[in-house]
Protein backbone atom coordinates (compact mmCIF):
# COMPACT_ATOMS: atom_id res chain seq x y z
CA UNK A 1 0.00 0.00 0.00
CA UNK A 2 1.41 3.38 -0.92
CA UNK A 3 1.50 6.46 1.25
CA UNK A 4 -1.23 8.06 -0.85
CA UNK A 5 -3.66 5.20 -0.25
CA UNK A 6 -3.25 5.30 3.50
CA UNK A 7 -3.53 9.04 3.47
CA UNK A 8 -6.75 8.78 1.50
CA UNK A 9 -8.09 6.27 4.01
CA UNK A 10 -7.62 8.60 6.96
CA UNK A 11 -7.53 12.15 5.66
CA UNK A 12 -11.11 13.01 6.56
CA UNK A 13 -10.90 11.74 10.15
CA UNK A 14 -10.96 14.62 12.62
CA UNK A 15 -8.67 14.59 15.67
CA UNK A 16 -6.48 11.87 14.18
CA UNK A 17 -2.78 12.59 14.64
CA UNK A 18 -1.17 9.47 13.21
CA UNK A 19 -1.68 5.91 12.01
CA UNK A 20 1.02 3.25 12.19
CA UNK A 21 0.62 -0.07 10.39
CA UNK A 22 2.88 -2.78 11.82
CA UNK A 23 3.34 -6.08 10.02
CA UNK A 24 3.22 -9.13 12.25
CA UNK A 25 4.79 -11.32 13.49
CA UNK A 26 8.04 -9.48 12.86
CA UNK A 27 6.79 -6.15 14.22
CA UNK A 28 8.12 -4.27 11.22
CA UNK A 29 6.70 -0.95 10.10
CA UNK A 30 4.58 -1.53 7.03
CA UNK A 31 3.13 1.90 6.43
CA UNK A 32 2.27 5.06 8.30
CA UNK A 33 0.64 8.42 8.12
CA UNK A 34 1.59 11.27 10.48
CA UNK A 35 -0.28 14.54 10.57
CA UNK A 36 1.70 17.57 9.51
CA UNK A 37 3.36 19.22 12.51
CA UNK A 38 3.96 16.01 14.48
CA UNK A 39 7.62 15.08 14.96
CA UNK A 40 7.14 11.34 15.46
CA UNK A 41 9.43 8.98 13.59
CA UNK A 42 7.36 5.90 12.61
CA UNK A 43 10.42 3.67 12.21
CA UNK A 44 11.30 4.25 15.86
CA UNK A 45 7.83 3.56 17.17
CA UNK A 46 5.91 1.00 15.17
CA UNK A 47 7.55 -2.18 16.39
CA UNK A 48 6.63 -1.46 20.01
CA UNK A 49 2.94 -1.49 19.10
CA UNK A 50 3.32 -4.97 17.69
CA UNK A 51 4.98 -6.15 20.89
CA UNK A 52 2.32 -4.48 22.98
CA UNK A 53 -0.55 -6.16 21.18
CA UNK A 54 1.20 -9.51 21.28
CA UNK A 55 1.79 -9.25 25.02
CA UNK A 56 -1.82 -8.20 25.51
CA UNK A 57 -3.06 -11.10 23.42
CA UNK A 58 -1.04 -13.62 25.40
CA UNK A 59 -2.19 -12.15 28.68
CA UNK A 60 -5.83 -12.27 27.66
CA UNK A 61 -5.43 -15.82 26.43
CA UNK A 62 -4.07 -16.68 29.85
CA UNK A 63 -7.25 -15.24 31.28
CA UNK A 64 -9.35 -17.07 28.67
CA UNK A 65 -10.63 -13.64 27.61
CA UNK A 66 -9.05 -13.15 24.22
CA UNK A 67 -11.08 -12.43 21.13
CA UNK A 68 -10.17 -11.27 17.66
CA UNK A 69 -11.96 -7.99 18.32
CA UNK A 70 -9.55 -7.14 21.13
CA UNK A 71 -8.65 -3.49 21.37
CA UNK A 72 -5.96 -1.80 23.46
CA UNK A 73 -6.77 1.75 24.49
CA UNK A 74 -4.18 3.96 26.16
CA UNK A 75 -5.12 7.33 27.54
CA UNK A 76 -2.06 9.46 28.24
CA UNK A 77 -1.87 13.12 29.17
CA UNK A 78 -2.17 14.42 25.64
CA UNK A 79 -2.89 11.37 23.55
CA UNK A 80 -5.53 8.74 23.03
CA UNK A 81 -3.94 5.68 21.47
CA UNK A 82 -5.91 2.72 20.18
CA UNK A 83 -4.34 -0.51 18.96
CA UNK A 84 -6.29 -3.03 16.91
CA UNK A 85 -5.34 -6.21 15.11
CA UNK A 86 -6.29 -6.50 11.48
CA UNK A 87 -5.33 -9.88 10.02
CA UNK A 88 -1.53 -9.86 9.82
CA UNK A 89 -1.23 -6.27 10.95
CA UNK A 90 -1.46 -4.18 14.08
CA UNK A 91 -3.04 -0.80 13.47
CA UNK A 92 -2.13 1.94 15.93
CA UNK A 93 -4.26 5.06 15.79
CA UNK A 94 -3.21 8.15 17.73
CA UNK A 95 -5.98 10.68 18.40
CA UNK A 96 -6.00 13.99 20.16
CA UNK A 97 -6.69 13.45 23.84
CA UNK A 98 -9.81 15.61 23.68
CA UNK A 99 -11.52 13.46 21.05
CA UNK A 100 -14.76 11.94 22.42
CA UNK A 101 -14.33 8.21 22.91
CA UNK A 102 -17.62 7.39 21.21
CA UNK A 103 -16.63 9.27 18.09
CA UNK A 104 -13.19 7.67 18.16
CA UNK A 105 -14.81 4.23 18.06
CA UNK A 106 -16.90 5.23 15.06
CA UNK A 107 -13.84 6.59 13.25
CA UNK A 108 -11.81 3.49 14.02
CA UNK A 109 -14.42 1.16 12.62
CA UNK A 110 -14.59 3.23 9.45
CA UNK A 111 -10.79 3.34 9.08
CA UNK A 112 -10.42 -0.39 9.69
CA UNK A 113 -13.04 -1.14 7.07
CA UNK A 114 -11.09 0.92 4.55
CA UNK A 115 -7.76 -0.61 5.54
CA UNK A 116 -9.21 -4.08 5.31
CA UNK A 117 -9.65 -3.51 1.61
CA UNK A 118 -6.25 -1.92 1.18
CA UNK A 119 -3.94 -4.16 3.15
CA UNK A 120 -2.78 -7.28 1.30
CA UNK A 121 -2.45 -10.79 2.70
CA UNK A 122 0.99 -11.04 4.19
CA UNK A 123 3.24 -14.06 3.98
CA UNK A 124 5.44 -13.88 7.06
CA UNK A 125 9.07 -13.89 6.17
CA UNK A 126 10.96 -16.88 7.51
CA UNK A 127 13.88 -15.39 9.39
CA UNK A 128 16.48 -17.14 11.51
CA UNK A 129 15.66 -17.08 15.20
CA UNK A 130 19.11 -15.74 16.08
CA UNK A 131 18.45 -12.70 13.92
CA UNK A 132 15.15 -12.09 15.70
CA UNK A 133 16.85 -12.47 19.07
CA UNK A 134 19.49 -9.88 18.18
CA UNK A 135 16.86 -7.48 16.85
CA UNK A 136 14.82 -7.92 19.99
CA UNK A 137 17.85 -7.21 22.16
CA UNK A 138 18.86 -4.12 20.23
CA UNK A 139 15.34 -2.81 20.47
CA UNK A 140 14.97 -3.20 24.22
CA UNK A 141 18.46 -3.17 25.70
CA UNK A 142 19.59 -0.30 27.84
CA UNK A 143 22.79 1.23 26.43
CA UNK A 144 22.28 -0.34 23.00
CA UNK A 145 25.62 1.02 21.78
CA UNK A 146 27.45 -1.45 24.04
CA UNK A 147 25.07 -4.35 24.19
CA UNK A 148 26.72 -6.58 21.59
CA UNK A 149 30.02 -6.32 23.46
CA UNK A 150 28.14 -7.37 26.58
CA UNK A 151 26.72 -10.39 24.78
CA UNK A 152 30.14 -11.27 23.42
CA UNK A 153 31.64 -11.12 26.90
CA UNK A 154 28.85 -13.16 28.43
CA UNK A 155 28.79 -15.86 25.76
CA UNK A 156 32.35 -16.03 24.48
CA UNK A 157 30.95 -15.56 20.96
CA UNK A 158 33.02 -13.05 19.06
CA UNK A 159 31.66 -9.73 17.89
CA UNK A 160 32.36 -10.78 14.31
CA UNK A 161 30.22 -13.89 14.72
CA UNK A 162 27.45 -11.91 16.39
CA UNK A 163 27.35 -9.59 13.39
CA UNK A 164 26.07 -12.56 11.37
CA UNK A 165 23.68 -14.17 13.81
CA UNK A 166 22.06 -16.31 11.15
CA UNK A 167 25.28 -18.31 11.04
CA UNK A 168 25.38 -19.16 14.74
CA UNK A 169 25.09 -22.85 15.55
CA UNK A 170 22.54 -24.31 17.96
CA UNK A 171 24.83 -24.11 20.96
CA UNK A 172 25.72 -20.50 20.26
CA UNK A 173 22.05 -19.63 19.78
CA UNK A 174 21.25 -21.13 23.16
CA UNK A 175 23.99 -19.06 24.80
CA UNK A 176 22.85 -15.99 22.93
CA UNK A 177 19.27 -16.37 24.12
CA UNK A 178 20.40 -17.01 27.67
CA UNK A 179 22.49 -13.87 27.74
CA UNK A 180 19.71 -11.78 26.20
CA UNK A 181 17.26 -12.98 28.83
CA UNK A 182 19.73 -12.10 31.58
CA UNK A 183 20.50 -8.68 30.17
CA UNK A 184 16.82 -7.84 29.82
CA UNK A 185 15.77 -9.53 33.05
CA UNK A 186 13.27 -11.80 31.29
CA UNK A 187 12.28 -15.40 31.84
CA UNK A 188 11.39 -15.82 28.17
CA UNK A 189 11.69 -13.81 24.99
CA UNK A 190 8.25 -12.91 23.70
CA UNK A 191 9.03 -12.80 20.01
Amino acid at each position, binding site marked *: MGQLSLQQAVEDVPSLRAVFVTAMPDCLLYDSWVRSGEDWIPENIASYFGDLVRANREGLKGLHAWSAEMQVTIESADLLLVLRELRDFVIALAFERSAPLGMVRVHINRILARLSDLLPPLAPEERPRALLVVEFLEK*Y*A*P*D*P*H*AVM*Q*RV*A*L*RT*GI*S*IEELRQPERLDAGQLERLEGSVK*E*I*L*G*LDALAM
Partner: protein
Amino acid sequence: MSAPQPALREYLAEHDLMLFGGAPAVYHCHHFNLFLDQTIDDALGQVAGERLRFSAAREFAHDFLVTACAREGATTPVERISVAQTLFAAMGQGKLQLSVDPAGGQGRGEFLHYGYSWFEKYGTKVKRLRPADAFAAGFAAAANEVAFGLPLGSTNAVEGFCIARRDPHCAFTLTAGSPTPAGPKVGAAEIRANVRPAFTGKSEDEVVKIAAGLRDFTASVRGDHRGLVQAFGVYVTLHLSGYYNRISFDAVRHIEATTPQSVGVLEELLRESGHVCVFNTFGGILLSPEWEGMVGKLSGDPTQVVLGCAAIARALGFGHWTIADLQPGRRLVMRSPATYESAYFIARHGRAARGNDYFFQGAVLAVAQLAHRVDWKSKPKLTQEFYQSLFRGGIPWRAEQTRGIAKGDEMSEIVVSSTNST
Protein backbone atom coordinates in the same frame (compact mmCIF):
# COMPACT_ATOMS: atom_id res chain seq x y z
CA MET B 1 28.58 17.55 44.96
CA SER B 2 29.90 16.56 48.32
CA ALA B 3 33.25 16.28 49.95
CA PRO B 4 31.84 14.65 53.01
CA GLN B 5 34.61 15.02 55.53
CA PRO B 6 36.98 17.66 54.14
CA ALA B 7 39.42 17.13 56.98
CA LEU B 8 39.76 13.51 55.92
CA ARG B 9 40.39 14.40 52.28
CA GLU B 10 43.88 15.10 51.02
CA TYR B 11 45.62 15.11 47.66
CA LEU B 12 49.06 13.98 46.66
CA ALA B 13 50.23 17.47 45.85
CA GLU B 14 52.01 16.98 42.54
CA HIS B 15 50.08 13.99 41.33
CA ASP B 16 46.48 14.89 42.04
CA LEU B 17 45.58 11.51 43.44
CA MET B 18 43.21 11.67 46.36
CA LEU B 19 43.19 10.02 49.74
CA PHE B 20 40.13 9.87 51.93
CA GLY B 21 40.76 8.93 55.52
CA GLY B 22 44.15 7.72 54.34
CA ALA B 23 42.67 5.40 51.72
CA PRO B 24 43.10 5.93 47.98
CA ALA B 25 39.84 7.43 46.75
CA VAL B 26 38.24 9.17 43.79
CA TYR B 27 34.95 10.81 42.95
CA HIS B 28 32.87 8.85 40.49
CA CYS B 29 29.34 9.17 39.17
CA HIS B 30 26.55 6.63 38.97
CA HIS B 31 27.04 6.17 35.23
CA PHE B 32 30.54 4.86 35.87
CA ASN B 33 29.61 2.86 38.94
CA LEU B 34 26.69 1.09 37.31
CA PHE B 35 28.43 0.38 34.04
CA LEU B 36 31.55 -0.96 35.73
CA ASP B 37 29.59 -3.25 38.06
CA GLN B 38 27.57 -4.46 35.10
CA THR B 39 30.73 -5.20 33.14
CA ILE B 40 32.12 -7.26 36.00
CA ASP B 41 28.93 -9.33 36.04
CA ASP B 42 29.07 -9.68 32.26
CA ALA B 43 32.62 -10.98 32.54
CA LEU B 44 32.24 -13.35 35.47
CA GLY B 45 28.55 -14.18 35.44
CA GLN B 46 26.14 -12.59 37.86
CA VAL B 47 26.78 -14.75 40.91
CA ALA B 48 30.59 -14.73 40.66
CA GLY B 49 30.48 -11.06 39.71
CA GLU B 50 28.53 -10.24 42.84
CA ARG B 51 30.96 -12.28 44.91
CA LEU B 52 33.96 -10.40 43.55
CA ARG B 53 32.29 -7.02 44.02
CA PHE B 54 31.35 -7.93 47.58
CA SER B 55 34.86 -9.19 48.39
CA ALA B 56 36.51 -6.10 46.93
CA ALA B 57 34.21 -3.78 48.85
CA ARG B 58 34.79 -5.67 52.09
CA GLU B 59 38.56 -5.70 51.64
CA PHE B 60 38.99 -2.01 50.94
CA ALA B 61 36.29 -0.84 53.32
CA HIS B 62 37.91 -2.93 56.08
CA ASP B 63 41.23 -1.09 55.83
CA PHE B 64 39.48 2.22 55.41
CA LEU B 65 37.31 1.75 58.49
CA VAL B 66 40.15 0.53 60.70
CA THR B 67 41.98 3.79 60.00
CA ALA B 68 38.84 5.93 60.22
CA CYS B 69 37.81 4.48 63.59
CA ALA B 70 41.30 5.00 64.96
CA ARG B 71 41.28 8.62 63.80
CA GLU B 72 37.88 9.22 65.34
CA GLY B 73 38.85 7.54 68.60
CA ALA B 74 35.99 5.09 68.16
CA THR B 75 36.80 2.18 70.43
CA THR B 76 33.51 0.44 71.15
CA PRO B 77 31.44 -1.52 68.63
CA VAL B 78 28.62 1.01 68.86
CA GLU B 79 30.98 3.91 68.18
CA ARG B 80 32.62 2.10 65.30
CA ILE B 81 29.32 1.17 63.67
CA SER B 82 28.29 4.78 64.01
CA VAL B 83 31.48 5.95 62.31
CA ALA B 84 30.91 3.47 59.48
CA GLN B 85 27.31 4.51 58.93
CA THR B 86 28.21 8.20 59.00
CA LEU B 87 31.06 7.82 56.54
CA PHE B 88 28.98 5.66 54.22
CA ALA B 89 26.32 8.35 53.95
CA ALA B 90 28.91 11.11 53.75
CA MET B 91 30.50 9.38 50.77
CA GLY B 92 27.22 9.63 48.89
CA GLN B 93 26.54 5.90 49.18
CA GLY B 94 23.13 6.24 50.85
CA LYS B 95 21.91 5.37 54.31
CA LEU B 96 22.90 2.12 55.94
CA GLN B 97 21.64 1.05 59.36
CA LEU B 98 23.31 -1.93 60.99
CA SER B 99 22.05 -4.04 63.86
CA VAL B 100 24.84 -6.51 64.48
CA ASP B 101 26.83 -8.63 66.87
CA PRO B 102 30.05 -10.57 66.26
CA ALA B 103 28.13 -13.41 64.63
CA GLY B 104 26.31 -11.15 62.20
CA GLY B 105 22.94 -9.47 62.16
CA GLN B 106 20.85 -7.29 59.89
CA GLY B 107 21.38 -4.24 57.77
CA ARG B 108 18.85 -1.94 56.21
CA GLY B 109 19.58 0.39 53.33
CA GLU B 110 17.71 3.47 52.18
CA PHE B 111 18.59 5.34 49.01
CA LEU B 112 21.63 3.17 48.44
CA HIS B 113 23.60 4.72 45.62
CA TYR B 114 23.82 1.67 43.39
CA GLY B 115 20.28 0.36 43.76
CA TYR B 116 18.65 3.77 43.75
CA SER B 117 20.52 5.13 40.75
CA TRP B 118 20.16 1.84 38.87
CA PHE B 119 16.42 1.99 39.25
CA GLU B 120 16.33 5.60 38.21
CA LYS B 121 18.48 5.01 35.12
CA TYR B 122 17.29 1.60 33.99
CA GLY B 123 14.25 0.64 36.06
CA THR B 124 11.66 1.58 33.47
CA LYS B 125 13.51 -0.26 30.72
CA VAL B 126 14.54 -3.60 32.16
CA LYS B 127 13.74 -5.77 35.11
CA ARG B 128 16.59 -6.48 37.51
CA LEU B 129 16.69 -10.03 38.83
CA ARG B 130 19.70 -9.75 41.18
CA PRO B 131 20.36 -7.12 43.86
CA ALA B 132 22.55 -4.16 42.96
CA ASP B 133 24.31 -3.22 46.19
CA ALA B 134 27.30 -5.52 46.52
CA PHE B 135 29.39 -2.52 47.53
CA ALA B 136 27.03 -1.75 50.41
CA ALA B 137 27.02 -5.43 51.40
CA GLY B 138 30.82 -5.48 51.50
CA PHE B 139 30.92 -2.22 53.42
CA ALA B 140 28.41 -3.58 55.95
CA ALA B 141 30.44 -6.75 56.42
CA ALA B 142 33.62 -4.72 56.88
CA ALA B 143 31.90 -2.46 59.38
CA ASN B 144 30.91 -5.50 61.42
CA GLU B 145 34.43 -6.90 61.30
CA VAL B 146 36.00 -3.63 62.35
CA ALA B 147 33.38 -2.98 65.03
CA PHE B 148 34.21 -6.23 66.80
CA GLY B 149 37.89 -6.39 65.96
CA LEU B 150 37.48 -9.37 63.64
CA PRO B 151 39.90 -10.17 60.85
CA LEU B 152 39.03 -9.57 57.20
CA GLY B 153 36.63 -12.19 55.88
CA SER B 154 34.99 -12.93 59.21
CA THR B 155 31.65 -11.55 58.10
CA ASN B 156 29.57 -12.24 55.02
CA ALA B 157 26.61 -10.21 53.89
CA VAL B 158 23.85 -11.01 51.42
CA GLU B 159 21.35 -8.50 50.08
CA GLY B 160 17.90 -10.06 50.30
CA PHE B 161 15.84 -7.03 49.33
CA CYS B 162 16.87 -4.38 46.87
CA ILE B 163 15.18 -1.26 45.67
CA ALA B 164 16.48 -1.97 42.18
CA ARG B 165 14.22 -5.04 42.19
CA ARG B 166 11.30 -2.85 43.26
CA ASP B 167 11.50 -3.83 46.91
CA PRO B 168 10.56 -0.97 49.23
CA HIS B 169 14.05 -0.78 50.67
CA CYS B 170 17.32 -2.70 50.72
CA ALA B 171 18.07 -5.27 53.41
CA PHE B 172 21.12 -7.36 54.22
CA THR B 173 21.70 -10.45 56.31
CA LEU B 174 25.14 -10.64 57.89
CA THR B 175 26.55 -14.00 58.93
CA ALA B 176 29.86 -15.36 60.15
CA GLY B 177 32.44 -16.05 57.47
CA SER B 178 35.97 -17.38 57.31
CA PRO B 179 38.95 -15.04 57.68
CA THR B 180 40.50 -14.38 54.29
CA PRO B 181 44.05 -13.27 53.60
CA ALA B 182 44.08 -9.92 51.84
CA GLY B 183 46.07 -9.35 48.70
CA PRO B 184 49.19 -7.16 48.76
CA LYS B 185 48.30 -3.93 50.48
CA VAL B 186 47.40 -0.94 48.33
CA GLY B 187 47.27 2.03 50.65
CA ALA B 188 48.62 5.55 50.65
CA ALA B 189 52.26 4.43 50.94
CA GLU B 190 51.96 2.08 47.99
CA ILE B 191 50.27 4.76 45.89
CA ARG B 192 53.01 7.26 46.72
CA ALA B 193 55.64 4.69 45.79
CA ASN B 194 54.11 4.02 42.39
CA VAL B 195 53.88 7.42 40.80
CA ARG B 196 56.43 8.92 38.43
CA PRO B 197 58.06 12.35 38.56
CA ALA B 198 55.48 15.02 37.86
CA PHE B 199 55.56 17.26 34.79
CA THR B 200 53.44 19.99 33.29
CA GLY B 201 51.49 20.36 30.08
CA LYS B 202 49.89 23.02 27.91
CA SER B 203 47.82 25.73 29.62
CA GLU B 204 49.21 24.50 32.90
CA ASP B 205 48.63 27.68 34.88
CA GLU B 206 45.00 27.79 33.89
CA VAL B 207 44.46 24.11 34.61
CA VAL B 208 46.05 24.46 38.06
CA LYS B 209 43.91 27.47 38.87
CA ILE B 210 40.64 25.85 37.82
CA ALA B 211 41.48 22.59 39.60
CA ALA B 212 42.16 24.49 42.82
CA GLY B 213 38.84 26.28 42.51
CA LEU B 214 37.00 23.01 41.94
CA ARG B 215 38.64 21.45 44.97
CA ASP B 216 37.54 24.34 47.10
CA PHE B 217 34.05 23.98 45.71
CA THR B 218 33.82 20.24 46.35
CA ALA B 219 35.16 20.72 49.86
CA SER B 220 32.30 23.00 50.81
CA VAL B 221 29.30 21.01 49.63
CA ARG B 222 27.54 18.36 51.65
CA GLY B 223 25.40 15.35 50.79
CA ASP B 224 21.66 15.54 51.21
CA HIS B 225 19.28 13.99 53.72
CA ARG B 226 19.22 10.72 51.73
CA GLY B 227 22.95 10.19 52.00
CA LEU B 228 23.13 10.85 48.27
CA VAL B 229 25.15 13.46 46.46
CA GLN B 230 23.19 14.71 43.48
CA ALA B 231 24.92 17.35 41.39
CA PHE B 232 25.69 18.25 37.79
CA GLY B 233 22.97 15.89 36.57
CA VAL B 234 24.53 12.80 38.16
CA TYR B 235 24.76 11.02 41.50
CA VAL B 236 28.31 11.33 42.79
CA THR B 237 30.16 9.08 45.18
CA LEU B 238 33.41 9.55 46.97
CA HIS B 239 34.60 6.02 46.43
CA LEU B 240 37.45 3.74 47.41
CA SER B 241 39.55 3.37 44.28
CA GLY B 242 40.79 -0.02 45.47
CA TYR B 243 37.26 -1.31 44.90
CA TYR B 244 37.23 -0.19 41.28
CA ASN B 245 40.73 -1.45 40.63
CA ARG B 246 40.33 -4.84 42.20
CA ILE B 247 37.11 -5.69 40.41
CA SER B 248 38.47 -4.44 37.08
CA PHE B 249 41.85 -6.12 37.15
CA ASP B 250 40.61 -9.34 38.76
CA ALA B 251 38.00 -9.58 36.01
CA VAL B 252 40.62 -9.04 33.32
CA ARG B 253 42.84 -11.72 34.82
CA HIS B 254 39.90 -14.10 35.05
CA ILE B 255 39.01 -13.61 31.40
CA GLU B 256 42.65 -13.90 30.36
CA ALA B 257 42.74 -17.29 32.10
CA THR B 258 39.37 -18.65 31.00
CA THR B 259 38.28 -17.10 27.72
CA PRO B 260 41.23 -15.15 26.36
CA GLN B 261 39.40 -14.43 23.12
CA SER B 262 37.10 -12.16 25.13
CA VAL B 263 39.79 -9.94 26.67
CA GLY B 264 39.32 -7.37 23.92
CA VAL B 265 35.60 -6.87 24.51
CA LEU B 266 36.12 -6.71 28.27
CA GLU B 267 38.73 -3.99 27.83
CA GLU B 268 36.39 -2.19 25.45
CA LEU B 269 33.64 -2.22 28.07
CA LEU B 270 36.02 -1.04 30.79
CA ARG B 271 36.94 1.86 28.52
CA GLU B 272 33.27 2.56 27.96
CA SER B 273 32.72 2.97 31.70
CA GLY B 274 35.27 5.78 31.58
CA HIS B 275 33.71 7.23 28.47
CA VAL B 276 30.18 7.35 29.85
CA CYS B 277 31.50 8.79 33.12
CA VAL B 278 33.47 11.64 31.66
CA PHE B 279 30.87 12.52 29.08
CA ASN B 280 28.14 12.87 31.69
CA THR B 281 30.01 14.09 34.75
CA PHE B 282 32.59 16.36 33.14
CA GLY B 283 29.96 17.54 30.69
CA GLY B 284 27.57 18.24 33.54
CA ILE B 285 30.20 20.23 35.40
CA LEU B 286 31.11 22.22 32.29
CA LEU B 287 27.45 23.08 31.75
CA SER B 288 26.79 24.01 35.38
CA PRO B 289 26.15 27.51 36.69
CA GLU B 290 28.95 26.87 39.16
CA TRP B 291 31.41 26.44 36.30
CA GLU B 292 30.14 29.54 34.58
CA GLY B 293 30.55 31.49 37.80
CA MET B 294 34.04 30.20 38.42
CA VAL B 295 35.52 29.95 34.91
CA GLY B 296 33.09 31.71 32.58
CA LYS B 297 30.85 30.70 29.69
CA LEU B 298 32.10 28.10 27.28
CA SER B 299 32.71 29.51 23.85
CA GLY B 300 32.82 26.15 22.09
CA ASP B 301 36.58 26.35 21.59
CA PRO B 302 37.90 22.77 21.96
CA THR B 303 40.97 24.02 23.81
CA GLN B 304 38.81 25.54 26.49
CA VAL B 305 36.91 22.28 26.94
CA VAL B 306 40.02 20.12 27.07
CA LEU B 307 41.83 22.22 29.65
CA GLY B 308 38.63 22.33 31.68
CA CYS B 309 38.49 18.54 31.61
CA ALA B 310 42.12 18.25 32.73
CA ALA B 311 41.30 20.47 35.69
CA ILE B 312 38.17 18.51 36.57
CA ALA B 313 40.12 15.24 36.46
CA ARG B 314 42.69 16.61 38.88
CA ALA B 315 40.02 17.90 41.25
CA LEU B 316 38.24 14.55 41.27
CA GLY B 317 41.42 12.71 42.17
CA PHE B 318 42.01 10.94 38.85
CA GLY B 319 45.65 12.00 38.60
CA HIS B 320 47.79 14.78 37.19
CA TRP B 321 46.24 14.88 33.72
CA THR B 322 48.18 17.15 31.37
CA ILE B 323 47.59 18.25 27.81
CA ALA B 324 50.57 17.23 25.70
CA ASP B 325 49.10 18.04 22.31
CA LEU B 326 45.84 19.37 21.00
CA GLN B 327 45.14 19.90 17.33
CA PRO B 328 41.44 20.70 17.23
CA GLY B 329 39.55 18.36 14.96
CA ARG B 330 42.54 16.09 14.52
CA ARG B 331 44.41 14.95 17.60
CA LEU B 332 44.47 15.06 21.39
CA VAL B 333 47.25 13.67 23.56
CA MET B 334 46.94 13.57 27.34
CA ARG B 335 49.56 12.35 29.78
CA SER B 336 49.78 11.72 33.46
CA PRO B 337 52.64 10.73 35.77
CA ALA B 338 50.10 9.01 37.98
CA THR B 339 46.74 7.34 37.52
CA TYR B 340 44.73 5.65 40.21
CA GLU B 341 44.68 2.54 38.06
CA SER B 342 48.42 2.19 37.45
CA ALA B 343 49.39 2.86 41.05
CA TYR B 344 47.13 0.04 42.18
CA PHE B 345 48.17 -2.37 39.46
CA ILE B 346 51.88 -2.05 40.19
CA ALA B 347 51.37 -2.41 43.92
CA ARG B 348 49.23 -5.48 43.59
CA HIS B 349 50.30 -7.19 40.39
CA GLY B 350 53.66 -5.79 39.36
CA ARG B 351 54.41 -4.88 35.78
CA ALA B 352 51.73 -4.97 33.12
CA ALA B 353 52.20 -6.47 29.70
CA ARG B 354 50.26 -3.70 27.98
CA GLY B 355 48.75 -0.32 28.71
CA ASN B 356 45.88 -0.93 31.10
CA ASP B 357 44.67 2.48 32.27
CA TYR B 358 41.22 1.60 31.04
CA PHE B 359 39.44 4.49 32.67
CA PHE B 360 42.03 6.96 31.38
CA GLN B 361 41.65 5.53 27.86
CA GLY B 362 37.88 5.92 27.76
CA ALA B 363 38.04 9.24 29.57
CA VAL B 364 40.36 10.94 27.08
CA LEU B 365 38.22 9.66 24.22
CA ALA B 366 35.24 11.29 25.94
CA VAL B 367 37.20 14.51 26.39
CA ALA B 368 37.71 14.60 22.63
CA GLN B 369 34.00 13.99 22.11
CA LEU B 370 33.06 16.74 24.54
CA ALA B 371 35.47 19.12 22.85
CA HIS B 372 34.18 18.51 19.37
CA ARG B 373 30.68 17.07 19.37
CA VAL B 374 28.79 19.19 21.86
CA ASP B 375 27.30 22.54 20.92
CA TRP B 376 28.15 24.26 24.19
CA LYS B 377 26.60 27.56 23.27
CA SER B 378 23.17 25.94 23.02
CA LYS B 379 23.61 24.46 26.53
CA PRO B 380 22.31 21.02 25.57
CA LYS B 381 20.92 18.58 28.07
CA LEU B 382 23.20 15.57 28.37
CA THR B 383 20.43 13.00 28.17
CA GLN B 384 20.65 9.30 27.45
CA GLU B 385 19.28 10.03 23.99
CA PHE B 386 22.04 12.51 23.33
CA TYR B 387 24.61 10.05 24.57
CA GLN B 388 23.28 7.27 22.35
CA SER B 389 23.26 9.62 19.38
CA LEU B 390 27.05 9.90 19.63
CA PHE B 391 27.37 6.30 18.52
CA ARG B 392 25.12 6.45 15.48
CA GLY B 393 27.29 6.24 12.43
CA GLY B 394 30.31 5.37 14.54
CA ILE B 395 32.57 7.45 16.77
CA PRO B 396 34.85 9.64 14.65
CA TRP B 397 37.73 9.26 17.11
CA ARG B 398 39.94 6.39 18.17
CA ALA B 399 41.88 6.16 21.41
CA GLU B 400 45.15 4.37 21.89
CA GLN B 401 47.31 3.99 24.99
CA THR B 402 50.84 4.57 23.78
CA ARG B 403 52.60 4.59 27.14
CA GLY B 404 51.74 3.13 30.52
CA ILE B 405 53.22 3.58 33.96
CA ALA B 406 52.21 0.04 34.84
CA LYS B 407 54.28 -1.32 31.96
CA GLY B 408 57.36 0.59 32.99
CA ASP B 409 57.01 3.94 31.22
CA GLU B 410 57.52 7.29 32.88
CA MET B 411 53.95 8.29 32.22
CA SER B 412 50.65 7.04 30.97
CA GLU B 413 49.78 8.55 27.61
CA ILE B 414 46.57 8.37 25.60
CA VAL B 415 46.48 9.48 21.99
CA VAL B 416 43.08 10.21 20.50
CA SER B 417 43.01 10.85 16.78
CA SER B 418 40.28 11.62 14.31
CA THR B 419 39.31 8.72 12.09
CA ASN B 420 38.51 11.27 9.39
CA SER B 421 42.00 12.71 9.23
CA THR B 422 43.84 9.60 8.12
